[in-house]
Each structure stands twice: as C-alpha cells, then as structure tokens.
C-alpha cells in the first residue's frame, strides 16, 4: 500500500515538473557541423536549467527555412523562434505583427539588455528605424579571404591588401606557380553588399533602406562596382579568377583541392575548413580598391538572426528570453565561435576568446571579427530591402551572364537596377 502511495507520489511529482517545463521550438538552417553545434548548445541549455526545454528543428537551407516559417505562420502553427538570414530580414521585420522585437522580449522578461554590449558591426543590422533590436544576431559572419600558405610561399607573394596589388603582383605570380589565384563563393554578398560597405558606398536610398520601405531605391549601378566587375571578367579571361557557378561549395571545392590559391568565403567557413582542407591555410581582410577609397571601412555581417514569433503565450516568450540570455552569455558565444568560426556577437565573448588565447593559437580565427571592428562609415551598418532574396537571384543571374559573356557589364547593372527597383516598389505595396 505504502509502496503504491510512494509510486503515485513520484508519478505526480514528475507530472508536475513536466507540466512546469515550458517547451519551445527553434527552427534553424544550420546543416552539417553547424547543426551539430546548435544541438550541442540546445542540450547544454536544457541541462543547465529545469524550466525550459528547447527543441531545435533543422528546416533545410536559409530560403527553405524562411518559406517554412511563412507557411507555418499563415497556418497559425509557427515555432517560438526562427532563424532568418540577412537577405530575408526585411521580409520578416517589415511584416506587421509577425515578430516580437527581441529588445521588448528581453526587457519584459527582466533580462538586462544594452545594445552597446554587442560588437559594432553586429549591433544595428537587425534593428528597426529607431535602432531597436528586432532580431537576435545569431550566426554572424563576414566575408574574408582565405589563402593557401604554401601556395603563396611558392609564388613568393604575401596576401594582397588591395585589388591593385592583387592584379599587379599576387595574381601573376600565383598563376605562374600553377594556381588559379582567386575564387569566391557568393557574388551578391561578397562583391556587391560588402563591396559597398568596404568602400563606404551607399547601397540603397533611405539610409540603405533602414529608414523605411517607402521609395527605397537600390544604388547598385555605380562606376566603382562596374569597374570591379569589368576587372573580374578580365581576370577570368586571363586566368586570374576562377568562377564555378553560383553554388557556394562548387567554388570552395577547388580551394580545398589546392587548385585555387585564395578563396573568399565566410568567416563562418573556418570551422569546416579546418576539417576539410588538408593543408595549412590562413586568412586576411577582404581587399579593397585604392582607386575608390584610401580609407577602407568595415564590412557588413552576413549570416542570420533569431526572431521570436508573435502569437505565443507569455510563459513561452519568457522561456525564449531565457534561452536568448543563455545564448548571448560569453561562454556559449565563445563555444559557438570556436567550433564554427562565426564571430562572437558580444564584446564580453570576444574578450573571453582573447583571454583564453584562442587567437594566439589560430590568428586566422580573429580576422572576421577584426574586420567587423574596422572603422565604421556612413553606409556600413547594413541594408534593408524587401524581396531581397529575389534581388540577390537577379544579381546572381546577371553576374553569371557577365562572366560567361552573355551580357555586358553596363547592360547587366542596368538590368539589376531596373529589376531590383521594380521588386522594391512591389514590396512597398505588400507593407501597409
């Protein structure tokens, strides 16, 4: 009898804890090694406390995750948190009532929040017009140039600081040494968005689109970038630049196979490269054109942010805030940074990584965050444009056509400008 009572008591108690535990769901787009680290963070978080259980769900690529959450939101079955990438930020931020701003969420749950705690390149990318943080920066990366140390030694050159140096010194030497000097994995992100930021050029009207969707126009059709793509085409013909299509890994593979000596990828590629590249590699800043600017500025962050979706109970929102607080703690950020190569998003985490000697052991791991901390300019905080996923696809299409000789640089940029502005005007009508 007593046994039964105890058993019943135990059952009741466990039922009570199960009921007290709030379950929250996170939809993300982190595959492979990155996904493993996300799961590790979730497991650690669930072990660290008893009130909240976080369930991470992998939803495919960035685009697929955004599509999935749109469908789920319309059906009223959205998760608590979704990871949305840079290009989709305008879509979710401009949608009235789709998200709970992370700043409000944290403050309501009593978690201290100061936007100044975040490193400068990260701070305002997912903020609204007033500077209020809407999405929690999660995996933040920036384009950096990786290089094969042996290849550069063989050619007797150092990694180029400017494109002028690349063209005159680095590329000819590397070509002579039997390498394709340069490849990159994302023309719109690296050679458009960050090209603008690195040279402090305006990318869109209305403060790069941050001060509202009304009348925002893209400013991509300028001489500096046209000159850059004219050079790219020329370099491709001369054998200075390898282009293997719009796919990310198609361009990374030849670097890993040591056919390409320098590859511009994401600072978040670092973790994967340490496993896949069977040679010594290092990294440096994204080069700039001296002819365009004498004072190069910082780059934008790429990657994605976590958004808390609306329509959830206060208890669940508090649970989300708890997870965000855990996620931004220096230790967790350092783990994320160390394992993946994505930059730590807070200053405290950066200090912890420095103190731990992470950058003494791997100097290349610091390049991304150092580049994000370079002097800022008027146009370097990011961009906010609607239907930007499509605008990127237009860019990719026209860049591909430039590089395969189907169109000219002038015609391509004219087409990008016209199509992007048409898309922006259309997007304006979806936001009321």
């Amino acid at each position, binding site marked *: 009898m007593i046994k039964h009572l105890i058993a019943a008591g135990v059952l009741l108690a466990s039922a009570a804890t199960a009921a007290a535990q709030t379950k929250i769901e996170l939809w993300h787009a982190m595959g492979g090694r990155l996904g493993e680290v996300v799961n590790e963070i979730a497991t650690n978080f669930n072990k660290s406390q008893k009130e909240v259980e976080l369930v991470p769900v992998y939803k495919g690529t960035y685009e697929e995750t955004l599509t999935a959450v749109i469908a789920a939101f319309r059906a009223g079955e959205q998760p608590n948190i979704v990871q949305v990438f840079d290009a989709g930020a305008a879509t979710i931020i401009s949608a009235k009532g789709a998200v709970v701003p992370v700043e409000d969420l944290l403050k309501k749950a009593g978690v201290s929040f100061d936007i100044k705690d975040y490193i400068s390149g990260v701070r305002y990318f997912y903020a609204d017009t007033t500077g209020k943080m809407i999405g929690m920066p999660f995996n933040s990366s920036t384009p950096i140039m990786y290089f094969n140390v042996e290849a550069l030694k063989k050619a007797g050159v150092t990694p180029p600081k400017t494109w002028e140096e690349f063209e005159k010194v680095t590329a000819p030497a590397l070509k002579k040494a039997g390498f394709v000097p340069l490849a990159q994995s994302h023309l719109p992100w690296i050679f458009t968005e960050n090209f603008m930021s690195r040279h402090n050029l305006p990318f869109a009207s209305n403060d790069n689109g941050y001060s509202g969707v009304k009348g925002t126009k893209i400013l991509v059709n300028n001489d500096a970038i046209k000159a850059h793509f004219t050079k790219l085409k020329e370099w491709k013909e001369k054998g200075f630049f390898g282009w293997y299509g719009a*796919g990310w890994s198609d361009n990374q593979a030849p670097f890993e196979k040591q056919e390409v000596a320098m590859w511009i990828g994401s600072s978040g590629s670092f973790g994967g490269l340490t496993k896949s590249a069977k040679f010594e590699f290092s990294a440096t800043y994204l080069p700039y054109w001296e002819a365009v600017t004498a004072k190069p500025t910082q780059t934008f962050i790429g990657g994605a942010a976590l958004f808390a979706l609306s329509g959830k109970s206060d208890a669940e929102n508090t649970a989300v805030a708890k997870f965000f607080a855990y996620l931004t703690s220096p230790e967790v950020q350092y783990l994320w940074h160390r394992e993946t190569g994505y930059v730590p998003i807070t200053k405290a985490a950066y200090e912890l990584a420095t103190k731990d000697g992470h950058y003494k052991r791997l100097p290349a791991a610091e390049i991304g965050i150092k580049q994000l901390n370079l002097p800022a300019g008027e146009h370097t905080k990011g961009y906010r444009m609607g239907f930007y996923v499509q605008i990127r696809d*237009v860019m990719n299409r026209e860049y591909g056509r430039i590089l395969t000789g189907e169109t000219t640089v002038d015609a391509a940029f004219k087409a990008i400008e016209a*199509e992007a502005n048409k898309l922006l005007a259309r997007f304006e009508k979806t936001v009321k």
Partner: protein
Amino acid sequence: MKRVIFGSSWLPYAFLAPQILIVIIFFYLPAAEAVRASFYLENPFGGGSTFVGIDNYKDVLTDDNYVRVAKFTFWFSLLVTFFSLAIALLLAVKADTVLRGAKSYRILLMWVYAIAPPVAGLIGVLMFDQHVGPITDVAALFGYKMQIGVNYNDTAAAMIIISIWKQVPVNFIFFLSGLQSIPKAVREAAQIDCRSSWRRFWTVTFPMLAPTGFFLLIINITYALFDTFAVIDVVMKNEPGSNPMTLVYKVYLDGFRGSDLGGSSAQSVILMALVLLLTIFQFRMIERRVHYT
C-alpha cells in the same frame, strides 16, 4: 458504349460526387485562389495586401527574364518530347524483333522507370558534376571543358539529357505494347507486299501506332512542362543563378523562395491558360489525323 439506365435520378450524381468533390477541392478551389491572388500584392506573413489590378501580369509579361525563361521552356519541351519519343520508339521496334532473351532485354530497358525523379536528377548531377563527374571527364578527353552551373548551354544539355533518360522507359513500355497489339495478319500481309522493312515501318507499323503515339505525345509534353521540376531543381542545387529554368520552376522560385505570392500567382494563371490552349489545340488539330482501330 453501353447505355446504363439508372432507376433513380440522384444515383448517378451520388456516384459522381466523390470525383467531383476531389476535383473541386484539389483543382478548382486552388485555381480560383491563384486567380484571386494574381490581382493582389500580398505580405508573405499575411499582414496586408493591396489590390493592384493587372499590374502583376504587366510586370511578368514585360520582364525580359520571363521571356527568356519562356523561350527556354519551349525548346526544352520540344527537345525532351521529341527525343524521349524517338529513342523509345527505336528501342521498342528493335526489342520487338529480339527473339532470344527478349524479357531480359525489356526489363533492362524499363528499369530506369522505377527511379524517382529527384534520385534520377541526383544521379545525373553526379555524372555531370564539374569537379568529379565522369561525363565531364569524357568531355575533357575530347578537349571540351564542360561546366554545369556555369555554362548555360552545358547546364541546359544536362537538364535535357537527364529528363529524356528518365522518360524513355515509360514511352518504351507503351510503344512495345502498342507494337504487340498490331494484328499478326496485318504484319504478315505487309511482309508479303513489301520487302523493305523501312518502308513497311512507315506505311504500316507507324500509322498503326498512331493512337499510342498521340497519347504519349500529350503525356510527354505534360512531363516536359511540369514533371521535370525535380530534375531541374536538383541540377540547380538551390542556386538559380544564370542557369536555364522552365516556367513552372520560375513560378516556384518567385512564390516560395522569393515570397512574391502575387507575381507567382499571375505566372501560374498564365501557365494555366497556356496549358488549356495547348490541350484544345492537341485534341482539335491532331486527333483528326489519328485513326483509332
């Protein structure tokens, strides 16, 4: 056909009801919704929408890229349909005359049919991969640098070849059964009258196959227009870039990847109209020339 007389007047409708219900739920309602959405610009998250009249249609039809995609779709469908039918017919005629081991031959020719389109696409992508693909290596032997995902024509060729490869077995099965249903007496009579097998084929066998051929033609055009989606998607590897694509794929890209519901709906309405026209044309123009036995 036999006329069936029902005792009560509602019974035939009751029998038809499930089918009609399915058609309404899965075809008419979504189609009506697409027509409605094509006149709006809608926030993807459902926040707001603006009535824009025929702006979506104007935007689509004045888009250079849309015209380019439409042109590609035309050539793609034409080539895929023609070659899947031609190769299948050739194989069927040859397999029909095989005497020893006929079954093994036929099974070998059919089994690609069992492969799901995305898997077929994947196998194709591996064969054509610009870094490790064996077909790319073969092309390199002839001094041609094949680059899928970079060169427009190479990518188009890969898409067409994979699509044809996937479709040939279906056509083969139909053609073979079509050939076997031609009465022996007719064939033997033809054999006595004409010694040239080439002429016999075109004057006797081919016309006898016409009903099968006509049916397959419609099936294949539909396949090339719509069912090749999976193949194109796999070859594209999630980055449309400057790669060729069909109209259906563009509907998906703009609507799902780009969250532009209005523009995507307008495109699908245009496509619906095209398919309707095509079907009417096929039945009116071609069926007249087909003789059913």
